[in-house]
């Protein structure tokens, strides 16, 4: 018991020193509703980065690509490849959705790890990756749900709902449950990974400010990329699943 309170005190001290702020938000009031200001600010920065770099790189495309254009062509090829693998031949219209999903999550995650947000002090909370707020991830996951319903309904009309009793009608509850677990797992996976990653880095930095956190930071970058890819791939897979024919 003594040990426990002692360790709690130590952790408390560390907590104060490192300035970890979990669940702290910089609230804005918009028409009687509250919003998380820090999430909006960082998401604007991310959107600005994406739009700015895309505009600069694609402004004047050359037949033989160089530099930025080459990179953006590579990214586009990658997104098309992911979409094509998951959705099939009719992937064309879904490239913007999958691509934006991937790029937004990827740049958000990496901005949390690479941009020195901590320089800017907020009255409450702190600036971090937009994806470490549950609102963002749930928003993206719900959009994915809407997207795959839209894909299925436009492809097959009301026959789309036939998939709920597909192998046997006994599976109806499970099939319905799937529509809830999909966005839930998508959003919580991303949220948990990014939040945990940032917390681990912050705690490690507070413990050992030199060298030691670097591998964890690199691992964090890797995880961030993987999470973006997983989210985009799963979104594409759900869309493809609802578009494919059920026999």
């Amino acid at each position, binding site marked *: 018991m003594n040990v426990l309170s002692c360790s709690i005190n130590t952790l*408390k001290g560390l907590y104060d020193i490192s300035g970890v702020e979990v669940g702290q938000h910089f609230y804005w009031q918009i028409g009687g*509703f509250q*919003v998380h200001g820090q999430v909006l600010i960082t998401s604007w920065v991310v959107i600005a980065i994406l739009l700015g770099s*895309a505009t600069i790189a694609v402004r004047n495309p050359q037949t033989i690509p160089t530099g930025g254009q080459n990179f953006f062509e590579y990214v*586009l090829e990658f997104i098309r490849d992911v979409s094509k693998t998951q959705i099939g031949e009719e992937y064309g219209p879904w*490239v*913007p959705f999958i691509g934006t999903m991937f790029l937004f999550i990827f740049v958000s995650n990496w901005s949390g790890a690479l941009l020195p947000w901590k320089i800017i002090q907020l009255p409450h909370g702190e600036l971090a990756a937009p994806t470490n707020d549950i*609102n963002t991830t749930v928003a993206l996951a719900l*959009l994915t749900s809407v997207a795959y319903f839209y894909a299925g309904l436009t492809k097959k009309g009301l026959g789309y709902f036939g998939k709920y009793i597909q192998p046997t009608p006994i599976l109806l509850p499970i099939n319905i449950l799937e529509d809830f677990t999909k966005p839930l797992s998508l959003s919580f996976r991303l949220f948990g990974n990014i939040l945990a990653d940032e917390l681990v880095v912050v705690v490690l930095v507070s413990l050992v400010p030199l060298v030691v956190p670097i591998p964890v930071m690199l691992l964090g970058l890797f995880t961030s990329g993987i999470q973006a890819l997983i989210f985009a791939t799963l979104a594409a897979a759900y869309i493809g699943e609802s578009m494919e024919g059920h026999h």
Partner: protein
Amino acid sequence: MANMIMASSKALITSSIPSSPRTKLSLPQIPIPKLPLPKLPKSPLILSLPSNLKSISVILASSLAFAPPSLAEEIEKASLFDFNLTLPIMMAEFLFLMFALDKLYFSPLGKFMDERDSAIKEKLNSVKDTSAEVKQLEDQAAAIMRAARAEISAALNKMKKETQLEVEKKIAEGRKKVEAELQEALASLDKQKEETIKSLDSQIAALSDEIVKKVLPVSN
């Protein structure tokens, strides 16, 4: 874990001391003022766990449960799972980003890449289909070669003819000369023969006379 955090944050909302004046705006890095750890009524729940289960997760959980009071001083609520207007705003931002990126990046660059691909394919195909052109060029080359060959052989024939004529002329000339010399030689030879025969004739006459004389004295 999530429930714990949520529960703790809710408990904190009720137990927090309402709105002490905010002092931290100008503080450099540490935004949390250090306050003594208040004993919460919740603590027995955590501390009553058997001590041999004091895993790090329990410590972390309890620290999370303990630590927020200092934060809750300042903010009315602190929670991870705090859904509000941010969610629809993020949806709108995402949709805006999707359309903007589609207009700025995916569509133009994708179209450009597809056009380039088709152009390259077309060029490749046209390169494959130049066999007709190659054939035509080959025919042309063969015609040129044939013409050149014909020209060369004509020139060769002409030259051959000319040289032959020349040679024949020379040969004829030589033959004429030789014949003339031969005639001359033959003529002189005949002359000599005639002369010799003539002289022989006279000698023969004398000789025959003598022979006759020698043979016929008896008869005389």
